[in-house]
């Protein structure tokens, strides 16, 4: 008998989050306000999981988890909402000393993920030398080049993830996916640095509908890395998933304005503590409204 179909990896957001355990290290894909798996992040806020180490090119994913008190440690280079430069939820938590920090250069973050992906303990770099990055992160060591140059370099340690949460444009049931936006960011490295990878997608489609030879170049990582697939249309909202929808700046402004105890409670009630994803899409103005949000123009 010839096997063709393979095993479906389809899950729900609740099933993905139900598999998370307190204290896990979770990498969140995307970049600031772009292609963040926000529906999965909201599912974490709804769940009881806590004491997470979050690794992220941070945007509202970090702010929401900080507001909900789920972060034990943050591994990051920045947290930004781009057009609104500061995420007020992150800001409040950071100023209160709410979590441990590994604050590193955003390129060091890439190297840490790459080291984990390549299964080496560290990668050498000049980045970080001469700065407070090394003073605030005593666990990051330097090494001396074994070659005649004798250069002192930073040994960026591998950043192993228990779980990576990523959002893609299209996927089939087995995790063959494409990212049609202009930048895959470092989702490929997060996928390879993680023990388990969960992918949310704007559209679930049959393999043949997703891929042509040309389109295959938009695949960032192969299905053998993918543990589970969740169909969540507009699942990156309020961040963008180009070409489908842009950054919802109005919603992000509301989110930022909710960075008070009362504000957060009502924001949660209005946008997070909802039973279905469709209810969320209705709460933020419906699918029609989100699809009309233009991609950002800088």
């Amino acid at each position, binding site marked *: 008998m010839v096997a063709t179909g393979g095993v479906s990896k389809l899950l729900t957001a609740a099933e993905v989050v139900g598999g998370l355990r307190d204290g896990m290290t979770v990498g969140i894909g995307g970049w600031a306000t772009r292609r963040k798996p926000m529906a999965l992040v909201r599912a974490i806020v709804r769940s009881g999981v806590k004491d997470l180490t979050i690794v992220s090119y941070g945007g509202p994913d970090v702010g929401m988890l900080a507001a909900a008190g789920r972060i034990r440690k943050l591994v990051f280079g920045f947290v930004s909402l781009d057009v609104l430069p500061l995420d007020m939820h992150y800001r409040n938590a950071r100023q209160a000393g709410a979590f441990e920090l590994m604050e590193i250069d955003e390129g060091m973050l890439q190297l840490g993920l790459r080291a984990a992906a390549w299964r080496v303990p560290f990668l050498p770099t000049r*980045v970080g030398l001469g700065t407070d990055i090394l003073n605030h992160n005593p666990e990051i060591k330097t090494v001396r080049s074994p070659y005649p140059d004798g250069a002192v370099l930073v040994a960026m340690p591998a950043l192993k993830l228990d779980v990576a949460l990523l959002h893609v444009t299209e996927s089939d049931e087995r995790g063959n996916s494409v990212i049609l936006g202009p930048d895959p960011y470092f989702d490929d490295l997060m996928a390879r640095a993680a023990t388990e990878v969960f992918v949310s997608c704007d559209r679930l489609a049959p393999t043949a509908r997703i891929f042509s030879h040309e389109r295959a170049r938009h695949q960032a990582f192969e299905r053998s890395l993918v543990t589970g697939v969740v169909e969540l249309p507009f699942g990156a909202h309020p961040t963008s998933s180009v070409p489908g929808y842009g950054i919802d700046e109005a919603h992000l402004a509301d989110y930022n304005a909710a960075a008070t105890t009362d504000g957060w409670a009502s924001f949660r009630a209005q946008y997070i503590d909802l039973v279905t994803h469709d209810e969320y899409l209705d709460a933020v103005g419906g699918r029609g409204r989100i699809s009309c949000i233009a991609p950002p123009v800088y």
Partner: protein
Amino acid sequence: MYRAAGLLSVAVTTGPSYTLAELVAVQCAEVWRGQGEVLATSFGIPPRIGAGLARLTFNPDLLMTDGEAYLLAEPVPLGPRAASDARVEGWVPFSRIFDLLWHGRRHALLGPVQVDRYAQMNISVIGDYARPKAAILGARGLPGNSISHINSMYVPNHSTRVFVAGEVDMVCSAGFNPDRWPEGRVPDSLRIGKVVTDLAVLDFGGLNHAPRLLSVHPGVNAEQVQAATGFKLERGADVPVTRAPTQVELSIIRERLDPHDLRATVFKGNPPGDRR
């Protein structure tokens, strides 16, 4: 002693009138004079105008991105426009941006929140690291930028709060403090271009990379600049006056690069460039 390109010490005021934002944008452009075929990275309105102006006038070789993932074949105007208006000449996703910048062929014009006499910059937190008074962005790419390629600075609010006495609260970008380097040896590769502010143009080209005053904007005097700076600036007996924008530069800024006059929002009251 030193004469930086693009500065004129002649205090003539017969040219076209211009705003402070326009003068500052032109000095931002000057950052890339003679820099060759490098990626110009800029944040904020005058730096973005400046990069476009440099590209359209004295440095046509500059590379520029759209802030997203593409290299632009020509500068795009600030403000509302159709995304499809931008002609592209390449693709630079973030992974390639890191490859490019660590390779060194880039000159960024950065907007630090604090700067010290060692040219160290901070954009992470103000105050105590564990319980900061103000959390800002995080170190971002400053550690990598500072050790990989030349950087300049744009400071729209020249004051002792930005140009601090002592060291910045968190050293995000590497600088010229020997105590922070193995065996006290600052790498030769560490380079700072210019510092463009609302009062003056500085650099770190003095003795042992000491900060120095290159020019004061029209109507500002050297004592004012020194008083607004938390560390000593080297300066000659006669500090040149920052040159006025040319008519050609003003036309390019007003008609091509910033047609919606976003630059009018940069400085309170949109003051004239010549404050004499």
